[in-house]
């Protein structure tokens, strides 16, 4: 008899998402070292090679890897969508993305054409394989909820972001920067942050906040319209960037207002949550909400893409996006381990709360938030940059340990086979 569990057969194998989750903090550590050996003057410009490499170590290496890993896990639960050949898709896309990312960083830093070509092929094929597999899986969805629509929208923005990214990377291979290079870079970065990551976060929060924290449901206006309105703002941003650059502020206002409203909504819903728990995941939602509010206003009122790049990146990529996805990792990873072990028939296993040391999770939170605050201040006080980078590196090392700890429990249980309770299957 197959005891692999009836509910697990529709979930992907545990290593499908976990390989992405375990790799992400390693790119975070790499980004931290690159910041440590850079200087705040270089990081003020988004066009410096250091800035581009560090940003992509964070966005592709950390944010992208966690988002893609999470989607392989979430799609069967949230949408009933199965990624075709999930094992092969995740294995190959993961390897291609790791190779593509590392060679991109090396290629740009060393100005090496061969490395850039390897990176172009690796990132292009890696992203396209997994994003298309997700799109194919969404074709079979019968019940298109607000969350599923948001996932689909996010993946489409992700696909265009990747294509624009490949166009930009190609200019480093051909040594020819088109007249549109900066405009494409503007659309690429805004679509990546607000389209690919932002819309996915909003869509998932429609489900996660009410369900995991018993917070009030999002209003139907939010669920039905906000993703479309943000998408319209992002398309307007593209249109104005290409044809009426002097009016891009209009699109900026449009996008920023909806994200600010989202940040406020998250804060208020957490205030009204019915569960009394106040763990590190709640702290991460709170910090994301504060950083997003700050980011929305700084983006409108400040010179986003000119002199204060490190400030904007620390607030939006770090404070907003990283906060939320690290918080979600603390929910997803222990549950995945528990769920897969339980479905294999092991009952005497640690609870979710026992898989990750609470104090280490808190330490990791404080180190990460301190590093973001430090990065912001390093614009005004360059001497703060190195200590902030160290704080970031340590937070990523602790995070890697915190993700590995449940996996070690998983391996240990499979090896020692502490019990095998048949009652669940009776």
């Amino acid at each position: 008899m197959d005891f692999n569990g009836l509910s697990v057969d529709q979930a992907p194998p545990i290593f499908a998402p976990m390989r992405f989750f375990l790799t992400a903090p390693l790119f975070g550590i790499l980004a931290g070292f690159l910041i440590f050996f850079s200087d705040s003057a270089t990081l003020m410009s988004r066009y410096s090679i250091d800035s581009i490499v560090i940003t992509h170590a964070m966005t592709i290496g950390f944010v992208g890897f966690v988002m893609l890993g999470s989607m392989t896990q979430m799609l069967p639960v949230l949408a009933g969508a199965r990624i075709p050949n999930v094992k092969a898709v995740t294995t190959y896309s993961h390897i291609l993305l790791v190779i593509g990312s590392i060679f991109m960083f090396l290629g740009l830093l060393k100005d090496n054409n061969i490395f850039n070509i390897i990176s172009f092929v690796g990132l292009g094929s890696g992203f396209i394989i997994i994003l298309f597999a997700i799109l194919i899986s969404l074709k079979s969805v019968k019940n298109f909820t607000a969350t599923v629509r948001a996932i689909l929208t996010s993946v489409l923005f992700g696909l265009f972001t990747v294509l624009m990214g490949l166009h930009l990377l190609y200019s480093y291979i051909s040594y020819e920067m088109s007249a549109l290079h900066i405009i494409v870079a503007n659309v690429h970065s805004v679509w990546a942050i607000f389209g690919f990551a932002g819309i996915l976060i909003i869509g998932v929060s429609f489900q996660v906040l009410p369900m995991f924290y018993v917070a009030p449901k999002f209003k139907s206006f939010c669920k039905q319209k906000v993703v479309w309105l943000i998408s319209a703002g992002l398309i307007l941003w593209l249109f104005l960037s290409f044809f009426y650059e002097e009016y891009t502020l209009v699109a900026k206002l449009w996008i920023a207002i909806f994200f600010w409203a989202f940040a406020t909504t998250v804060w208020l819903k957490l205030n009204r949550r019915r569960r009394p728990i106040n763990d590190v995941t709640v702290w991460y939602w709170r910090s994301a909400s504060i950083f997003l509010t700050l980011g929305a206003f700084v983006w409108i009122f400040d010179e986003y893409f000119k002199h204060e790049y490190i400030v904007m990146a620390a607030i939006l990529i770090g404070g907003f996006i990283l906060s939320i996805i690290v918080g979600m990792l603390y929910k997803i990873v222990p549950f995945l381990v528990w769920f897969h072990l339980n479905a294999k028939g092991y009952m005497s296993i640690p609870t979710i709360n026992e898989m990750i040391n609470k104090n280490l999770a808190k330490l990791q939170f404080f180190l990460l938030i301190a590093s973001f605050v430090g990065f912001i201040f390093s614009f005004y006080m360059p001497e703060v940059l190195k200590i902030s980078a160290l704080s970031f590196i340590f937070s990523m090392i602790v995070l890697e340990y915190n993700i590995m700890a449940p996996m070690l429990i998983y391996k240990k249980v499979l090896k020692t086979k502490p019990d095998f309770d048949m009652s669940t299957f009776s």
Partner: protein
Amino acid sequence: MSTIKEYLTLDHRKCDELFALMEDSAAQSLDGAKEACAEFIHESERHFQMEERVMFVEFENKTGMSQGPTAMMRHEHNQARNVMKQLEEARASGNKDKFFGLSETLMILLQQHNMKEEQMLYPMAQQHLSADSDRIVDMMNSIIVQ
């Protein structure tokens, strides 16, 4: 009268409320949470039985799918029952850490289970059983927990 999908979805939210009340009460004192814990477990069991003894049976008869999604959901009900049993044991023995560790585990287990039901199974059930919707809701409403 509400549809099968609306009725069972609303019942999920009712169980969520009872879960939150139980945790609230347990945060004060595990002894004092006896009643809230019993009520949550009873209502969850009632919900499981409404599905297993009524809706799933109707669905299986209508579609001929007895080893499909309903079998998967029955298995997850059993997983949840097992955790609820351990939860009550932790409460009775006064082990707060264990209790909240199990309540967190149960919460995520139930929520991902509810998502699957609400996103997939209930819409499928509503589609196949729409003609008998009122009768099925009536039967579920009047169920006596065994």
